[in-house]
């Protein structure tokens, strides 16, 4: 079942087909040679072509009706989607359709289904709002003498970034007093065993640890860790976009941010997003599916709103709660962002930087190669110095190449709780 837009009239441009052109050439050349050489066999050679040109039709369709199904919806990078088109009112003309893809779209083979719809499979290779391309239709008459062509721009699709995989979460040692799923250091009503203590009146009898009671001679009670929710703010630095398109630093930052937000929202944590681009835009931490849509919407669209890039630290408390874990996806090329990270750390925020820089300046070829190599070495040293200074401040910096799961670089911080000292 296909939900379609109402059909619209599309004008057809007609021209002589290539087949007709060749028939005309054969006929004219044969007749010309028959006249010049006075050899009747050349006139006979032109006869089949002449007869095939005889049923030439002069009344042609001015327009056909085209329906496009609005079935693509939002897609994810690399995911196959299908647009459907149906052409009606083409009488006995045969219809041939193909999809000429736009940038970052891969088109598949168009297929005609039993219901008369032409399915145009395609795949979006890069996140963002993308034009699918152009539908090209060729109409051919029964005698294959004329070709009618029409082209229709296909609608745009919204492509969500492919979220990076993250199974093991980084959890802070101090969690706010919200019910959640992460075991906290304090005792509570959770399910994770924390220890044994002496029974005091008022404790639940069902939690008495009888083996320990037998050994010690007094009533002993099992204690369990409290389960708390965490507040995570993901900061995606899209102010610079370096590297190969499709795997650039901005691509990795967006995919990493999407994956992190998805993983923490899946653990029922409160997740917010700060997009650090030309302007700073944010979504205050929240939970649930609607929050996931808000975060994706902020990553995909740029309405030009927001605050200046030097105002991260002055964001409202709701956008940047003091107890939040701030996960920064950045190539660390923006000095103002680095200063902001230092300031956040000095204010006591728990900051974790995921470095998504996977490109280096190209030294090029030619006479200036030596100087370019030297400049590149200096640039590398400067980058290393930036990362070292952040680590010295207590901001862990890990590198992610975009190929592997985020679990690999975050493993040292996800195996145990992350302790943040003020």
């Amino acid at each position: 079942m296909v939900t379609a837009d109402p059909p619209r009239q599309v004008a057809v441009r007609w021209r002589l087909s290539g087949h007709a052109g060749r028939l005309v050439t054969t006929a004219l050349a044969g007749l010309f040679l028959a006249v010049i050489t006075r050899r009747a066999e050349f006139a006979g050679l032109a006869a089949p072509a002449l007869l095939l040109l005889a049923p030439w039709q002069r009344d042609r369709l001015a327009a056909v009706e085209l329906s496009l199904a609005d079935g693509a919806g939002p897609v994810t990078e690399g995911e196959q989607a299908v647009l459907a088109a149906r052409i009606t009112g083409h009488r006995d003309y045969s219809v041939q359709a193909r999809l000429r893809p736009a940038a970052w779209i891969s088109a598949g083979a168009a297929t005609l289904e039993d219901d008369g719809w032409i399915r145009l499979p395609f795949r979006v290779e890069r996140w963002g709002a993308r034009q699918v391309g152009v539908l090209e239709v060729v109409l051919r008459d029964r005698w294959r003498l004329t070709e009618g062509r029409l082209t229709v721009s296909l609608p745009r699709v919204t492509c969500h970034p492919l979220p990076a995989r993250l199974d093991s979460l980084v959890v802070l040692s101090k969690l706010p007093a919200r019910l959640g799923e992460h075991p906290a250091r304090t005792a509570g009503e959770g399910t994770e065993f924390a220890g044994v203590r002496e029974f005091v009146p008022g404790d639940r009898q069902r939690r008495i640890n009888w083996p320990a009671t037998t050994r010690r001679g007094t009533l002993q009670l099992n204690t369990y860790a409290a389960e708390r929710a965490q507040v995570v703010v993901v900061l995606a630095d899209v102010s610079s976009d370096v590297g190969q398109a499709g795997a650039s630093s901005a691509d990795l930052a967006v995919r990493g941010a999407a994956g992190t937000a998805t993983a923490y929202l899946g653990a029922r944590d409160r997740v917010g997003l700060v997009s650090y681009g030309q302007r700073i835009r944010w979504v205050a931490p929240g939970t649930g599916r609607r929050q996931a849509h808000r975060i994706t919407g902020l990553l995909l669209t740029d309405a030009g709103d927001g605050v200046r890039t030097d105002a991260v630290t002055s964001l409202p408390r709701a956008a940047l709660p003091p107890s939040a874990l701030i996960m920064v996806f950045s190539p660390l090329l923006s000095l103002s962002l680095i200063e902001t990270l230092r300031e956040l750390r000095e204010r006591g925020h728990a900051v974790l930087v995921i470095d998504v820089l996977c490109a280096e300046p190209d030294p090029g070829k030619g006479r200036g190669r030596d100087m370019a190599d030297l400049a590149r070495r200096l640039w590398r040293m400067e980058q290393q110095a930036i990362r070292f200074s952040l680590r010295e401040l207590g901001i862990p910096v890990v590198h992610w190449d975009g190929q592997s799961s985020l679990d690999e670089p975050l493993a040292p911080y996800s195996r145990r709780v992350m302790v943040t000292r003020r």
Partner: protein
Amino acid sequence: MTADQSARPRAGSQRRQGTRPGAGAQPARAAQPARAVVAAALLAAGTLTWAALPMSGASVGARPALIVAVGCAVLSVAQLADHILANRPLSGPRGAAAYVPPVARLWQRILRALRITPWPEGMIIAALAVEALHRSRPWHTAVLGVVLFTWLLATHLAESAARPTVFRPHLPLIAAGLGLLALSVGAAALPSSGLGGIAIWLAALAAIAAVIVAALTLPV
């Protein structure tokens, strides 16, 4: 790739839910145009070979005409192959280069010119010229006509990725055309001593037919 609405789907061939669209039909559809291109190339080679034989009995201009015909044939086959390649499932650009060197621009222009030049028409004219530069041999010209006509049909099948059944409505006309070809060969084989007047009439009819064909092809 392309989908042809004239090709009716088989009854009951419904795609299962959840399978990738078009995944099953793609290889068969991709192989068909490739076969048609090979067939067109073989028929072009056969046409030129037949038109040139025997080269020893041809006039002076036959050799240059043959060279032109071979060049046009090669380029027309390349044009067909390029057309097929352009119709395959493809990917959009991954970002445009900010600067295209002049040599690359020139090469792109040459390629564009090669793509839009009507090489098959050139081959037809050159092949018929080669045939005309031989002495009169009606049956030989008739065979050339049949091979050339088959090549025309094969070329159209290759460029439109259509099945041979699209020519089913043309069969009566094709049969009539081949009959006329046979008649003309018979007429040409007759001794010409007593046909002076008829030959003039045939030439006049051929000229009138040429004018009609030219008028038919004028854009409306």
